[in-house]
């Protein structure tokens, strides 16, 4: 029996076709039947245009695209023998705004997807206003972001050599005030204990002290038996270099270095269904990327402990992402305090961009995982641009012999509803997947 289902909400939609055998999902294919041709649009345009076009790939993680684009162009500078110098201030502001984008993504996903879906799955009613609560918290994060980036979504304030903003003390005080408000919200609504306590959990026993929505969500996850299903490859990849994340892969419980030259794109598996997404593979293997991968590679004690008990189940995946929001809030606080406003925002690169010819690659950790932009410039004009988005790793569509991470996680589910929930634990962002 084959059943086709539309997965919608948040960022575009995907079509998943399930095959059933003995009341269990035996295989599933994922298709994304829409595309805008972003890479073709970027071709033949001046390099700096990438800073305006690529954020518009996605309405929810556009800032990550901006960061990746600016890193890609800066890497062309470096490969041309004119490495770009960036002040610590500009570096910190870039990382701060990226972190805020991650936080708002995680909170929106938790309150607009995970919580309502769980309530739907278990037929347990939750308050209507719940959905709006997450959106409110997310808007606090984007407000802080806007202080430095001008607006959210779709900002282009990062440029090769730094950032265009020149924040004053007033700006930084405003940002601190908003961040405090966000942290207070997080403590009061989501966890019921202090952020400091929560972010220093070393065992899952400590979770017993958590109240608030997080307690409810955790209980619902267990009740829906999410700790017993949704297992994927147990192979993790995080390629972006940040203070909050380490670039590495984790296979067979061992860490190893990664290099972008091993990343390949392959045609998706499809049986007569149209799809515009290409599969991203590392050394021709499927890898899971995103918050769980980052936690495994960074060695976050609370998540590692959880992993020992429940492996890479849907439960662990959801918990890892919501826990990452807490760690990132702490990180934000530190970053905001560390910014020295006296430093320059921008240091002029040694070469003119119109004199640049060469290749470059920019990798960042976006909300859903590793995002790669690679570019070839000829005299400052884009000759070739390639985007590899996190969902191309997680939601790749392989054959029954080589299913992608989300496909593999759905196999064995006893109903379409639970399989769909597992699918959502990777988070659909179809506008990124096909771009």
């Amino acid at each position, binding site marked *: 029996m084959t059943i086709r289902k*539309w*997965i*919608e*909400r*948040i960022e*575009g*939609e995907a*079509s998943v076709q399930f095959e059933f055998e003995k009341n269990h999902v035996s295989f599933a294919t994922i298709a994304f*039947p*829409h*595309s*805008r*041709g972003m890479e*073709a*649009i970027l071709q033949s345009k*001046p390099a*700096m*245009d990438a*800073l*305006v*076009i690529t954020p*518009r790939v*996605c*309405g*929810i993680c*556009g800032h990550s695209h901006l960061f990746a684009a600016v890193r890609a162009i800066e890497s062309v500078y470096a490969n041309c023998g004119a490495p770009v110098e960036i002040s610590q201030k500009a570096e910190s502001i870039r990382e701060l705004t990226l972190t805020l984008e991650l936080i*708002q993504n995680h909170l*929106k996903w938790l309150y*607009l997807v995970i919580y*309502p879906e769980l309530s*739907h799955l278990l037929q347990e009613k939750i308050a*209507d*206003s719940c*959905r*709006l609560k997450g*959106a*409110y918290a997310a*808007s606090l994060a984007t*407000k802080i972001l*806007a*202080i*430095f*980036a*001008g*607006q*959210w*979504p*779709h900002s*282009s*304030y990062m*440029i090769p*050599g730094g950032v*265009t*903003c*020149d924040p004053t003390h007033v700006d930084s005080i*405003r940002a601190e005030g908003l961040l405090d408000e966000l942290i207070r919200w997080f403590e009061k609504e989501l966890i019921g204990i202090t952020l400091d306590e929560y972010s220093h959990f070393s065992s899952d026993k400590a979770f017993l002290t958590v109240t608030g929505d997080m307690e409810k969500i955790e209980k619902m996850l267990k009740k829906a038996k999410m700790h017993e299903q949704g297992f994927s490859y147990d192979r993790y990849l995080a390629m972006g270099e940040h203070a909050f994340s380490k670039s590495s892969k984790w296979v067979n419980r061992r860490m190893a270095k990664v290099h972008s030259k091993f990343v390949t794109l392959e045609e998706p598996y499809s049986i007569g269904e149209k799809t515009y997404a290409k599969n991203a593979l590392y050394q021709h293997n499927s890898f899971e990327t995103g918050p769980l991968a980052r936690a495994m590679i960074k060695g976050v004690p609370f998540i590692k402990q959880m992993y020992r008990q429940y492996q890479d189940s849907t439960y662990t995946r959801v918990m890892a992402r919501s826990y990452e929001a807490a760690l990132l809030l702490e990180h934000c606080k530190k970053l905001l305090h560390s910014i020295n406003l006296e430093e320059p*925002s*921008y240091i*002029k690169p040694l070469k003119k961009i119109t004199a640049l010819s060469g290749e470059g690659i920019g990798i960042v950790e976006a909300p859903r995982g590793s995002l790669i932009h690679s570019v070839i410039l000829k005299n400052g004009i884009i000759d070739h641009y390639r985007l590899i988005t996190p969902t191309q790793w997680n939601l790749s569509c392989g054959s029954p012999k080589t299913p992608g991470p989300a496909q593999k996680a759905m196999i064995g589910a006893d109903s379409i509803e639970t399989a769909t929930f597992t699918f959502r634990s990777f988070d659909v962002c179809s*506008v990124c997947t096909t771009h």
Partner: protein
Amino acid sequence: MSDRVEAVKKLFTSKSSRVETNKGDTYYQDLFVKCEARLNEMRAQAPANRLDFSDLLEDNGIDRREFMKWASATTAMLMLPPMFTPLIADAVVMMNRAPVIWLELQDCAGNSEALLRADGPKIDEIVLDIISLEYHETLQAASGHQAEKQMEEAMELFKGKYILFVEGSIPMGMNGQYGTIGASGETFHDHLLRCAENAAAVVAVGSCATFGGIPAASPNPTGAVGVMDVVKNKPLINIPACPANPANMVGVILHYVLTGQVPELDSLLRPKFAFGYRIHDNCERRAHFDAGEYVEEWGDAGAQNNFCLYKMGCKGPMTFNNCSIVRYNEGVNWPIGVGRGCIGCSEPDFWDKYAYERPMADAKIKAPTGGVEKSVDEFGLGLLTATAIGIGIHAAASAVAGKKSGECEGESK
């Protein structure tokens, strides 16, 4: 030079670019009576959802006084005289009687994100909460077949009454195969036409839906077009910008609830209350432009002192939008506030014509002075003349307006 002056005069006096802020006493009296009648009619209707506006205000700790302040600001934004303030306040309560169906086509969902209160002043957010969003592919609680059914039902139930909001462009290339939707694989084009058929009005939100936006940028790989290129014979409102400002979305719905009509539009079908003025007219860095103080390169002394970004490619002087007043993310900031010029994202073909780091003189824009200029400084000169004439016209207009508002002073007090 005299040709230029003529061209500029033409630009500023053409009917579509004139913003009439005062239409006279009789007009507003008639409108007031009409609006009152409409609101009474709506009051009799059953609300489409359970959310109660006054409860939500209370939940969010907003008192009546603060709300009335918002209502009078919104009245001003919609270019209505102060006597309309109580009507606006009433109309807001009735927002859950205006069924809205929201479609997402070839897009990045950035406008939905904006609607999700990524920005917009606090009361606007609550208003957005209570708007009866019957179908939104991104935000809805239902999904899959259930959602499709929900939408069919909403379209049937509110036949001829719902406002259709469309986000995203329509790919026409390859027979529309670059974008399909639902289990039947319906193309975005067919889907849009079907949903628009029984809509009271269609609102295109964001630059993709209005003019094709980034997907339509050269070489337009998917043949993307805007809603107005395919939907005919329907009242159509364009709210461009990337992302569109939620304040403007609320304004359009509010105007519709209040008057039952679409707001006054310019030649590109944009509501004049939001797109009647140029970014440049109200820019916080305008004084530096007038003084000839420019940022010459990133990070220079000009940049540190918030000088005008015109020479860095700012398109503010050519772009009609209210972001210099409304700003983004609950009024926190806007691109020019962080030293990045305007990219003209609310103008047609903004990408190909207005690309951001190219000064206007190097861009393929037909300048108001009648052609593409040779250098920035030369162009600046032409523009300065334009501005001067612009100010002249405005001054004349406000003199007339002042007289008129003097006549109806009685009501406004």
